[in-house]
């Protein structure tokens, strides 16, 4: 099942790429078709997934490179399932959203400078690798997908992006490659360690087993942890390594920006949750204070930067830097509600920021400029666009009743029960979130209608079909997150058992037990 999920988009990408030159419309339809098939398949898989069954389900394992001991091993636990669902749902919407983004690569009315079908082929390839990276349970396979993902994104940003696209694309690639190389060193180190402790392996289950963990001396564990952690910190932009995100997301076409921020960055946090914590429990506990300070700085720093931006897409990018601070805060708080909240946050952030980027993309494709002061009073001219933008924005500032609130609340409550001060500082983030979203909304949507915006059309049917499901999901998860949480909780419990952390008991109960 999982291999099918990876193979179909890959084959689809090939198919779309090999279509005859002029047939752009056909390319789009094929791409949409393939992504829809994948979406349906993943939903079927999700339904069949039994939350309290084995941790890894739908597992497949074949020898890949026998000499290195590398398997093609795929399997899905709660967290991976939920993230795969996120990506397989987002991609068709992105394909639909950027229906004619690629056509305008040559300027508004000029014939498309760049071939439309490559754009869609790249999107499909990206989807294949996204599913692959979440499904991989072999560290080496995970690494391969982790690096392979960069290529399609590089080309998408590079040839279909905004004015400084080449700078942004190269910066994105170099940043992630640098991280990737560190991770490669750590992966090899892992193999060597497992070789000393018996037979060398990359399989995640074997690596997290106690007999290998005892063989890793604390210092090597710290170094290996660092290797993995920096790669993931770059991918999910933690503060010092975040400068590539605003450029990449700012210059990428809206659809790609959704995938970059919505799914690609989740690989970083997913990696932290599964690989950093589970393979090196001691080291992660040792590094927790550092990570917490970084995430708290990230929250406040990202939010303050977002307030000061003049470009819509960069602003949204900086908001997700702040949101990623929350996610890493939740992960490294190591309480069950914190980590489940963090995982749920990944899903919610994917949808809410995805919606924000898509709508920003629609606005920019209409007006042509991404600057906030190029708009004004759009609410009067395009009420539907403004309304959906407001809902997406509100889910961005995690208004209760919408999905992000549930996860942010769980992260904050989970973090507070163990680390008081970071949680309180992080809560300041919700005030800053209100400021940057509403101020941006006011400058673009409210007030008298600016001249240039007068002729702006409201959301077309196609665009509505794109945004409506996301808004529906945001509201639905806001009121009833239980199904997603049921899938996430067992695997989070496993992680916590691995990290030998229990939830801190409420002080009352403790006092009660003392008397």
């Amino acid at each position, binding site marked *: 099942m999982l291999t099918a999920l990876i193979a179909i988009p890959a084959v689809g990408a090939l198919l779309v790429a090999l279509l005859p030159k002029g047939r752009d419309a056909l390319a789009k339809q094929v791409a949409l078709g393939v992504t829809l098939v994948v979406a349906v398949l993943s939903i079927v898989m999700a339904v069949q997934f039994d939350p309290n069954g084995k941790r890894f389900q739908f597992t497949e394992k074949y020898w890949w490179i026998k000499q290195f001991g590398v398997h093609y091993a795929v399997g899905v636990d709660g967290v991976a399932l939920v993230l795969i669902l996120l990506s397989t749902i987002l991609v068709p919407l992105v394909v639909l959203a950027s229906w004619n983004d690629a056509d305008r690569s040559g300027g508004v009315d000029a014939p498309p400078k760049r071939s439309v079908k490559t754009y869609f082929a790249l999107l499909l390839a990206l989807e294949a690798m996204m599913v692959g990276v979440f499904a991989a349970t072999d560290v080496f396979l995970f690494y391969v997908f982790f690096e392979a993902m960069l290529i399609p994104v590089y080309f998408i940003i590079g040839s279909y992006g905004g004015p400084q696209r080449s700078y942004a694309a190269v910066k994105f690639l170099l940043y992630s490659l640098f991280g990737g190389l560190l991770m490669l060193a750590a992966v090899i180190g892992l193999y060597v360690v497992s070789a000393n402790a018996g037979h060398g392996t990359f399989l995640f289950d074997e690596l997290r087993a106690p007999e290998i963990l005892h063989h890793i001396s604390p210092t090597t564990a710290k170094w290996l942890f660092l290797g993995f952690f920096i790669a993931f910190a770059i991918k999910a932009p933690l503060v010092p390594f975040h400068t590539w995100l605003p450029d990449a997301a700012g210059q990428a076409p809206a659809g790609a920006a959704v995938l970059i921020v919505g799914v690609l960055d989740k690989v970083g946090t997913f990696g932290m949750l599964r690989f950093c914590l589970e393979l090196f429990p001691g080291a992660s506990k040792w590094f927790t204070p550092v990570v917490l300070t970084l995430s708290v700085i990230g929250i406040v720093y990202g939010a303050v*930067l977002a307030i000061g931006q003049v470009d819509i897409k960069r602003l949204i990018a900086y908001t997700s830097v702040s949101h990623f601070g929350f996610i890493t805060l939740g992960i490294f708080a190591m309480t069950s509600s914190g980590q489940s909240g963090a995982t749920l946050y990944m899903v919610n952030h994917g949808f809410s920021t995805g919606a924000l980027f898509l709508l920003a993309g629609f606005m920019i494709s209409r007006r042509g400029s991404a600057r906030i002061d190029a708009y004004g009073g759009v609410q009067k001219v395009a009420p539907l666009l403004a309304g959906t933008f407001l809902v997406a924005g509100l889910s961005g500032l995690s208004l209760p009743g919408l999905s992000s609130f549930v996860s942010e609340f769980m992260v904050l409550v989970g973090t507070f029960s163990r680390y008081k001060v970071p949680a309180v500082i992080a809560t300041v983030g919700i005030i800053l979130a209100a400021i940057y979203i509403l101020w941006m909304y*006011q400058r673009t949507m409210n007030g008298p209608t600016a001249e240039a915006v007068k002729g702006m059309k409201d959301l077309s049917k196609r665009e509505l079909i794109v945004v409506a499901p996301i808004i529906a999901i945001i509201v639905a998860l806001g009121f009833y997150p239980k199904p997603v949480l049921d899938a996430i909780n067992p695997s989070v419990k496993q992680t916590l058992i691995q990290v030998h952390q229990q939830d801190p008991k*409420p002080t*009352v109960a403790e*006092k009660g037990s003392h008397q």
Partner: protein
Amino acid sequence: MTTMNAVLAAGGPELHPQAAEGVQSVAWLLIALPLAGAAILLLSGRRTDKWGHLLGTAMSLGAFVVGVLAFFQMLGQHADGRSRLVHLFPFISAGSLKVDMNLLVDPLSISFVLLITGVGSLIHIYSIGYMSHDPDRRRFFAYLNLFVAAMLLLVLADNYVGLYIGWEGVGLASYLLIGFWQHKPSAATAAKKAFIVNRVGDFGLSVAIMVMFATFGSLSYQDVFGQASQASQGTITAIGLLLLLGACGKSAQLPLQSWLLDAMEGPTPVSALIHAATMVTAGVYLIVRSHAIYELSPDARLLVTIVGVATLLAGAIIGCAKDDIKKALAGSTMSQIGYMVLAAGLGRPGYVFAIAHLIAHGFFKAGMFLGAGSVMHAMNDDVNMRKFGGLRKVMPITFATFGLGYLAIIGFPGLSGWWTKDGIIDAAFEKGGTSGQILGWLALIGAGITAYYMSRLMFMTFFGEPRWDEDVHPHESPKVMTVPLILLAIGSVAGGAFLILGDRFAKFLAPVVGEPEASHRLITPYTAIVFALMVVGVGLAYVQYLRRPVPRTAPAGNPAVTFARKDLYGDALNESLLMRPGQWLTRLTVFFDNRGVDGVVNGLAAFIGGTSGRVRRVQTGFVRSYALSMFVGAALVVGALFLVRI
């Protein structure tokens, strides 16, 4: 007189809600109806323009009917069987954090439900007339319904998370409604400001929730209040203060009061519903609902009273200097809520009076706002009182209803204001000790100032000779607007007596806030003083605004007057302390991020480029220099060989 603390030591009543049945089991309908209304109106788009507003009003009335039925069912139940739990669905469950979305129907929440749906429905009816010619009427009614739904969720939730959802939902509704006329930049800024200041309050509330979870392990009222006595004093005080911060944000109390006066940008029904009757009282509801916590920490309670009194005086002073009728009423709302917070901070007896005053205030303040709305409607939306005058002949019904509201608020004996506000002042004095005295006297002075500015408002608007502009010819508002005014006037007259007489409301709230220790004595030594101060206030206003002609343009006042006109420099303070440094901070961090972090990255790239440029020069092209390097290499190899070998 038994001291207050002795009584409280016994701790609040044990809260053991049983499962709800009968009408109360469908209490979720209360929230669902307006929510469905809002959803239908928002999603349907243009098609429902024609009958949209009727659907909205119907939904609100439906909720009111369900509320009344539940209320009567509750009256039928035995006293301590009155708090009922309605299980809805498990909301969040992750390891130790388990939050279920349940509704708690008990006397406190049912009284709020009645107030919200009752006053809310009246305002819906009023808005039919008020917004009849507004193109976006459908969206207005959608937002009103959304607000009612959120407010009901706030009061009905049985845990702090549900309360928090309602809390922010109400903040969102007020944002949408204040900024309803979005094309006006001032409205948009006011809406944003309201939301952000509310968010600061919500920060306090969410941190309180976190502390509660860390301390009690659960967030439902039952568990929190049940285990409250076991928690350490420091934690309890912390929770109390944080809840107070949340309450201040929402009820526009002193530190976070700047948004209330700007919120008048929204349409008048909004000001009436949200910024008079319901939303601003949410803070008082939070304090009264968490009475178990406040009873356990005296200094938290003390701070609540201090904030209450401070806001009371500030609101009153601001009310005196405002020429805009709505801003004056907003100032008075702020000061009346100050009274309620003061009462809530006084402990057991205070709760009853706080809620009673809240309900009474809900009636007469909403009535006055709607009255002001119909006055504005008549003076084609002009709010400057200096251009009114002599309207009593032209708009008799509005004058009559507004007058009754006025008499109620200044505490004219017999009307509801007198019952509830004097009760609060009396409770303040009874608190005993120096703090009791100070609170009591300040409350008294506040009552006097209230009488002054309300009379000023009455005289400037309805009495004296007309100072209208030429093109203005006021007329009475249509029936659909005056009927709610009349109903509210009746409520503001009878409300107080109905609640306080014979401690009816006290007994009603007993299961929630505990038995009142002494029945309320009507005539206390302070009643006379209150009456005297009232008369002085009215007289002063009479002298200043009825004897002498009111100038059409605001005269340049002395520093005190400008101090009041500038809302006690609240805005200036916020701007200089928070906003300007905030802007500087953002500009600085953006610069730092672009130059600093990015600088490092680009710098690194440039450095590598530079060094490679220099290293390139080593390739001189001369064969002999290459030969030299080869020879040096050979020498090094030989040296290394010897080094290793020897």
